[in-house]
């Protein structure tokens, strides 16, 4: 259990690089000051990773941006931030400028927008060097190249002259990290550095950061919402909520003995991959919440419905009748054979084949998880199943209708049996319609209800998703993300579909919100017995709900199997890699997994 603490100094050095105390950040909005961070205090030592964890609105980013004066003009900062004993709060702008980039560097969340699109990455790195030193441009370029090598940029001598858009997401983030490290900063602030990346790329970037941290001896502030990332990286953790640090401590202490209820909640809300180490036998159901493990995932044990939605081995989605592997129990609600999907050519851009030769069957009441990284074509499949994208070749039968070459009138009828919940709750509801109308629209359009009856049905649907019926006259912008997603689910259930497509329904939500939405979802599934194609990039989320899992990559189906098979005995290398890349919110377990992952990556 002490294996992973070896990269951390046994005794924190007496003088920290950074000492933050009593830091307050306020924002001026419409004549009032609103606090974004209150009395924040922590220390960062050299070679140490301090993670600041919190959900949206917790003030974690703002408090970090405040350290070096990167807040917008309507912000005000008070308190003390001492970098090597120098006070940064209230420092003159010109002086602060010499510290930024040279002593305190930053890595941002979205490298595509954080790098200037019109300059090459080499130019941008050289510019950083030359803003702070009189280094000759040749030498600066050599230094930039050296850094790109350090961050394992493939073919750095060529890539140095690439524009950001010519690089992949992971490469961009590597360039961003190279730029940040080029002047050997004392402190590196990484703001959600891997949130925009796929898990496998995330694993690589995290590996890189761990590796660098050993070599450069900077202090690192890691801002993230992802407990898995924290477990992988952090030495110490500050948990933030509503602008305050509610709990701080060493990583293992936070994970294994959380004291504050919010920390407990946060840990509990994270869906956790249920993997037994390497080659254990199929797990026993109901994992005991032993002391050495993080406060166990509460979502596994919702109080009301006894059959736990995510009983490993059985699958969450099993309806009472067709539980588990009952795909053959009845006529499948969705069956595809050799399905090929293309985005038609538009103008001069040729057609793009997004999905090829895709075979999948979903039985009535069965929940199938469709997992893949971005660009794998998983959402395209979902869109095709609801008829939003024409079938290019092959067969796709949904709710008894062959969608290949279907006539509009039949498509309309087919759609009575299938519906979809979208990823972005902000975009999936018409901002100009009160949500009652959005929910009732399918009913009204299919002439299933009108007038009073429609009102009653809408109220019923809203109550089903645990929203008060009175919300029906509200507009989407008045609702929180979680509430909007509930509305989306209510709308999808309006026609009592046989098949529901859930396209990353929770990936835009905070973990705690995600937990409640997922729980609601699984309850509804058990109540209404609809079959479901649950699309997600997050294996842990899929595992909670699905009895079978299909893995996609680059437009093709990699493998399918029961959740237990896929997670514990994956047949394909890609699946194994995917599973290995997911960081689990448990420092000890994650350390073991990381070792295994690295061993596999570098034999």
């Amino acid at each position, binding site marked *: 259990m002490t294996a992973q603490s070896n990269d951390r100094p046994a005794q924190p050095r007496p003088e920290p690089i950074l000492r933050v105390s009593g830091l307050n950040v306020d924002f001026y909005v419409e004549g009032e000051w609103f606090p974004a961070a209150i009395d924040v205090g922590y220390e960062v030592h050299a070679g140490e990773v301090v993670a600041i964890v919190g959900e949206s609105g917790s003030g974690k980013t703002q408090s970090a941006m405040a350290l070096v004066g*990167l807040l917008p003009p309507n912000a005000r900062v008070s308190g003390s931030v001492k970098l090597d004993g120098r006070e940064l709060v209230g420092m003159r702008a010109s002086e602060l400028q010499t*510290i*930024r980039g040279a002593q305190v560097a930053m890595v*941002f969340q979205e490298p595509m*927008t*954080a790098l*200037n699109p019109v300059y090459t990455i080499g130019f941008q790195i050289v*510019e950083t060097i030359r*803003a702070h030193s009189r280094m000759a441009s*040749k030498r600066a370029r050599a230094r930039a190249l050296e850094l790109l090598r350090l961050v394992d940029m493939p073919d750095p001598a060529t890539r140095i002259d690439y524009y950001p858009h010519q690089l992949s997401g992971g490469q961009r983030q590597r360039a961003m990290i190279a730029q940040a490290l080029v002047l050997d900063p004392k402190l590196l602030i990484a703001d959600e550095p891997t949130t925009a990346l796929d898990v496998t790329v995330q694993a690589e970037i995290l590996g890189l950061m761990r590796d660098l941290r050993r070599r450069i001896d900077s202090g690192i502030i890691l801002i993230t919402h992802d407990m898995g990332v924290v477990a992988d990286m952090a030495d110490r953790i500050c948990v933030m909520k509503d602008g305050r640090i509610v709990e701080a401590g060493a990583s293992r202490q936070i994970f294994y003995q959380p004291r504050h209820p919010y920390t407990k909640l946060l840990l509990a809300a994270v869906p956790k991959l249920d993997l037994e180490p390497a080659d254990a036998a199929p797990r026993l159901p109901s994992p005991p919440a032993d002391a050495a493990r993080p406060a166990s995932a509460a979502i596994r044990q919702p109080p009301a419905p006894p059959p736990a939605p995510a009983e490993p081995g059985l699958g969450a989605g099993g309806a009472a009748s067709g539980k588990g592997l009952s795909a053959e129990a009845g006529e499948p609600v969705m069956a595809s054979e050799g399905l090929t999907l293309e985005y038609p050519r538009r103008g001069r851009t040729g057609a793009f084949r997004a999905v090829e030769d895709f075979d999948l069957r979903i039985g009535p009441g069965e929940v199938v998880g469709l997992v893949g990284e971005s660009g794998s074509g998983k959402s395209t499949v979902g869109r095709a199943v609801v008829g939003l994208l024409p079938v290019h070749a092959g067969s796709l039968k949904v709710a008894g209708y062959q969608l290949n070459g279907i006539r509009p009138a039949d498509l309309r009828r087919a759609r009575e049996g299938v519906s979809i919940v979208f990823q972005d709750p902000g975009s999936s509801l018409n901002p100009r319609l009160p949500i009652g109308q959005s929910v009732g629209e399918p009913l009204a359009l299919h002439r299933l209800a009108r007038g009073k009856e429609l009102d009653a049905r809408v109220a019923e649907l809203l109550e089903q998703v645990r929203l008060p019926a009175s919300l029906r006259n509200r507009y989407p912008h008045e609702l929180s993300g979680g509430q909007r997603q509930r509305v989306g689910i209510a709308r999808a259930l309006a026609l009592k579909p046989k098949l529901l497509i859930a396209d990353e329904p929770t990936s835009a939500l905070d973990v705690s919100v995600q937990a409640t939405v997922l729980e609601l979802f699984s309850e509804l599934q058990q109540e209404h017995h609809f079959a479901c194609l649950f699309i997600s990039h997050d294996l842990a989320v899929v595992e909670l709900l699905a009895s079978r899992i299909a893995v996609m990559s680059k437009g093709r189906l990699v493998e399918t199997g029961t959740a237990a098979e896929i997670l514990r005995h994956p047949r394909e290398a890609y699946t194994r890699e995917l599973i290995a890349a997911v960081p689990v919110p448990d420092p000890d377990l994650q350390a073991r997994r990381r070792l295994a992952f690295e061993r596999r990556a570098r034999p």
Partner: protein
Amino acid sequence: MLAPVFSFIARRVAVGSVVLLGATFIVFMMVAWAVDPLADLRTSNVPNKQFLIEQRTEALDLDMAPVLRYFKWLGNVVAYLWGQGTFGVAVTNGQPVADQLAVAVPTTLKLVSASVVLAILLGVTVGIVTALRQYSSFDYLTTFFTFLFYSLPAFWVAVLLKQFGAIRFNDFLADPRVPIWAVALVALAVGGLAAMVAAGRPRGRLIIGLVAFAGAAAVMGYISASNFLLEPGLGIVGVTLTGAGAAVALAALTAGLSNRRALWASLSTVAVGAALYFPLQYAFVHASWPVLLGLWATSAVVGVAAGLAWGGDDRFVSARTAALTGLVMSVFVFADRLMKAWPSYVGHPRVNGRPIGTLGAVTPELGGTFWLSATDVLTHLVLPTTALVLISFASYTRYTRASMLEVMNADYIRTARAKGLGERTVVVRHAFRNALIPLATVIPIDIALIFGGAIITERIFSWRGMGTMFIEALRQGEIYSVMGYFLVTAALAISANIVADLIYAGLDPRIRVNA
């Protein structure tokens, strides 16, 4: 790399030609239907009226259906492009349309080019400043004035300019003493603006405002007292001082004052200019436009050389800054020489003490030296250029402002700050370079529009350019002249769109033209 560009251009030209064909057809039909080329003959009482009517009918193929006439015209155009014939002849004066265009196009070019450059420079600068000082009093003030300029009818402005810019100003030149209240007013305005634009704490801004106030008052006082308006001139001292000022400003803007080499390079360019001041006066005796353009280009080369000579790691930055300084410096030298010609111009019998022209592009039968006629061209350009700048400057300001505001919120601006770059680098290198992308694509289209649309300005100031040609042709029912005008302006508009796309692709590495 080149092939896609060519295929892109070829494709766009093909599509553009189709659009052009369609548009010319529509316009031809409309004009053919609306005008009656025989109107003047029908009402006349000449004895051979019938013969004349037949003759003209014959000449214009009026007995043919308009559709056929269109295709005949089209054939003529193709033949003309092939090098044969002319596409139509004006009936009333027998002038070939091609010849009319040969006169009108250069006139309009002369009229609009200066105003386009000025409007872009002014508009973009003011736009950037308002964006950086968003919701400051300067921003509100510019917003009001840009809206006011938007709302000004061109003809109204032009008439006012004629009255106050020419007639009253010429009256004033008879005894050019600036009253003290006017000095105070102008100085107050300058000082106020400077204080508004300046950043920082109120104290600093107050000081800047006071300095600007005093400076403006001194300049105005000097102008009034020294009879500058009648006997202007900078002299070698004035040229050197203004040049040095420009050098410092340009270095601060394009390279940052911390880049000493760029500053020294620009200043040495100014020194070279000053050293060449007297030799140049002799060279100016035999000046002509090509010679001057050559000298102008040479000054940029001198700047580049100075920049490279100062060497250093950023020698290309220094060279760029110094080249710009060279260009500006030579403009000062040129202006100084023009000023020396001013008294003889004002005293010229054909000018007769009223130098600001309101009619036409030049004073007819002026004669005299190159410098006299150059002054004449410029005095005739002053008013129409002002009118055009006033009208188009507003939209550039708004556009730049919006574009800059959008960019200043981008993530990479935060990254640039996080890297510890100075505010100048953040704004110029990171923000403006990106804000330029949408801006640069409007500019060609705007130029095409102003080229065909300076109709009112041309008419009021009696320039015989494209607009005048068009209006008169419309009035007289000269269908071929109308079509000639339309062909040129529409082709220009279509090419402007293609150019805009190419610029876009050139400025934004994300865009590839073959996509």
